[in-house]
């Protein structure tokens, strides 16, 4: 590496690393085997002709801009006409949609079952309601069969809240008097 004008690394010949570099230089300078280029070229040509171009896209439109078939020419230039291209696209859409519609009409929806089958209840070992029906609790108090008289209903108006308080005061005053 030091003999070459391009390589600017310092020489370390003689030291420990110099030995290593001498060995590496020796290996780096080994000639390539004979016929290497021909073998590589042969391999490349074989690959090239087997798979010409891996990712090539179809050209659209199918003719080049310099193609004389372009712009209304009758020799296979029907693809250039926008009307015909539109008609072809419409025909494709029609066929695809028609096929889809036919498939939809042929498929019949599943009929709903007329009776609902309950899942089987385990006779033993499982839990069941034993045909019990939960009923809500009703009121246990007295039930009025007829409406209250008006006098009673009038007394139990706004003053009804004060009366118990007076009674309570009277009851508490009696023991003090004794």
């Amino acid at each position, binding site marked *: 590496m030091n003999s070459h004008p391009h390589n600017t690394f310092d020489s370390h010949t003689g030291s420990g690393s110099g030995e290593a570099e001498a060995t590496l230089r020796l290996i780096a*300078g080994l000639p390539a085997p004979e016929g*290497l280029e021909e073998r590589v070229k042969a391999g490349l040509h074989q690959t090239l002709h087997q798979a010409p171009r891996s990712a090539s896209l179809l050209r659209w439109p199918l003719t080049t801009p310099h193609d004389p078939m372009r712009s209304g020419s009758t020799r296979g230039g029907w693809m250039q006409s926008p009307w015909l291209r539109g008609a072809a696209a419409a025909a494709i859409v029609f066929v695809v949609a028609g096929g889809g519609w036919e498939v939809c009409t042929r498929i019949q929806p599943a009929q709903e079952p007329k009776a609902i089958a309950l899942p089987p209840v385990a006779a033993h070992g499982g839990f069941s309601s034993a045909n019990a029906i939960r009923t809500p609790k009703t009121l246990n108090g007295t039930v009025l069969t007829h409406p209250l008289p008006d006098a009673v209903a009038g007394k139990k108006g706004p003053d009804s809240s004060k009366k118990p308080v007076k009674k309570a005061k009277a009851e508490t005053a009696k023991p003090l008097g004794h």
Partner: protein
Amino acid sequence: MEIAPSAVQDEAREQVEEEALDALVGQYASTLYRVAFSILRNPSDAEDAVQEAFLRVLRHRDTLGEIRDHRVWLIRIVWNIVLDRKRRSKTRPETDDVAELARVLPAHGLSAEQRAAAAQHHAHVLTCVDQLPAKEREVMVLSAFEELTSVEIASVLGITESSVRSRLFRARNLMADLLNHSRSLR
């Protein structure tokens, strides 16, 4: 049937690309082989690596015109292939290296005994090289190629030139320590 002009153009372009590829092979196959061999140390593996590198070039031949320095670009491709292969392959015993080196190293005027001793010495040195950290080892191996400048090595490894220099400095120191240590054990 009439052949479309686009097909003719495609054929012509493919012909040009093929010729360019052949030119690259003729110009750089030998260099790439030596780079591959310096890491793999096996002729058939190195040749396979070169073939794979050019196959990659073939796949990306559309971008050939955008490459500034084909040589460094190709070395970088083969370098990545070789490192990948080395990583995947099992480590070979040192005896394999000795036998391989004795076969391939030049032996002008050397007796069979001297040749075997030289091969053993080189194999031992290479074992020490393999003990270096990967970054330092890579720089040291590439710096052995006279045609590669420090800038080009930096480009192959994807680092700066100053990193190349500092790594090479560390590699040399470590290598000296390793060789001295192995000598003291003998």
